[in-house]
């Protein structure tokens, strides 16, 4: 079924988001295949990969908390609220996979912080919340872009790129919701 077969844009977008979750789950399964990752990564290389995964995990926990702030702000109206909750769900999936992979590599996953600082005083409208989320998502794209080439294990690099793609979709859709060109550039950095 294509995007254009749905009765309206909101229904289409929701269906596509559900599908993107299914694609990500496929990548997660590949990442968690486990033995391959363990066999291909050892010693210093594994320690380096664990550090990358843990930094990503810390940022994912923070993104989950940020979306929680947005969802509980009372500023988001449906269907934007649904969008935020869906994106938060993706970050939860990322965090779950990252934590399990750190464990499989013999590391200790970082824990979520008890408290996060966010600029809540500046969030007064739905657009403020969306802008804040878009800033974090754009940063996440750059962060994964900077992390992917550092992985010693190519399967982990591939999985990191899969998450990068998801963050980029979040950023584009948030920009679209803000009335901005969803994809303003041909290349990210």
């Amino acid at each position, binding site marked *: 079924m294509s995007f254009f077969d749905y009765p309206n844009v909101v229904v289409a977008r929701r269906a596509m988001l559900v599908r993107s979750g299914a694609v990500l789950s496929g990548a997660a399964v590949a990442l968690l295949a486990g033995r391959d990752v363990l066999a291909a990564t050892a010693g210093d290389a594994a320690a*380096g990969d664990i*550090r*990358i995964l*843990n*930094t*990503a995990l*810390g*940022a994912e926990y*923070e*993104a989950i908390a940020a979306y929680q702030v947005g969802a509980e702000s009372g500023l988001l109206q449906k269907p934007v609220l649904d969008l935020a909750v869906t994106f938060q769900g993706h970050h939860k999936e990322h965090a779950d996979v990252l934590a399990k992979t750190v464990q499989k590599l013999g590391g200790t996953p970082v824990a979520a912080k008890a408290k*996060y*600082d966010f*600029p809540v005083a500046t969030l007064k409208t739905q657009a403020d919340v969306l802008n804040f989320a878009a*800033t*974090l998502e*754009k*940063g*996440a*794209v*750059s*962060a994964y*872009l*900077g*992390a992917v*080439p*550092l992985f010693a294990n190519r399967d982990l690099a591939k999985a990191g790129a899969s998450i990068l793609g998801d963050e980029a979709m979040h950023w584009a859709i948030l920009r679209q919701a803000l009335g901005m060109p969803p994809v303003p550039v041909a290349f990210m*950095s």
Partner: protein
Amino acid sequence: MVRRNARLAAWTAIAASACTVAIAATPGDAKRGAEIYTRCQACHALEYNRTGPKHCGVVGRKSGSVPGFDYSPAMKRAKLTWDPKTLDRFLADPPKTVPGTTMTYAGVPDPQERADLIAYLREAGASGACR
């Protein structure tokens, strides 16, 4: 032929190194740096600690010294002062400059972009957001 190629390679290396020095000396543009800083905002903010430490006051600060931030052992040991030179080196390749850092980011390869970013960090440190 081999000797000529070796001479050519040597001259290319010298020219490339001179070029790098010239580019690195270009003054940074804080306005461009603000745009580049959006790449940092998955983990950093000016005013508060996040996955990475806050950036208010970073220029001139000792590495690993923001109160309340849980630094990696590597960064605690680094004993750097974040001036434009050390920031430039770190931003070019964080894991190479401080092996074991949790800033697992390949870096900003373009010297002009690093200069712009450092100019922004310096200017932002003196702005109302950081006072």
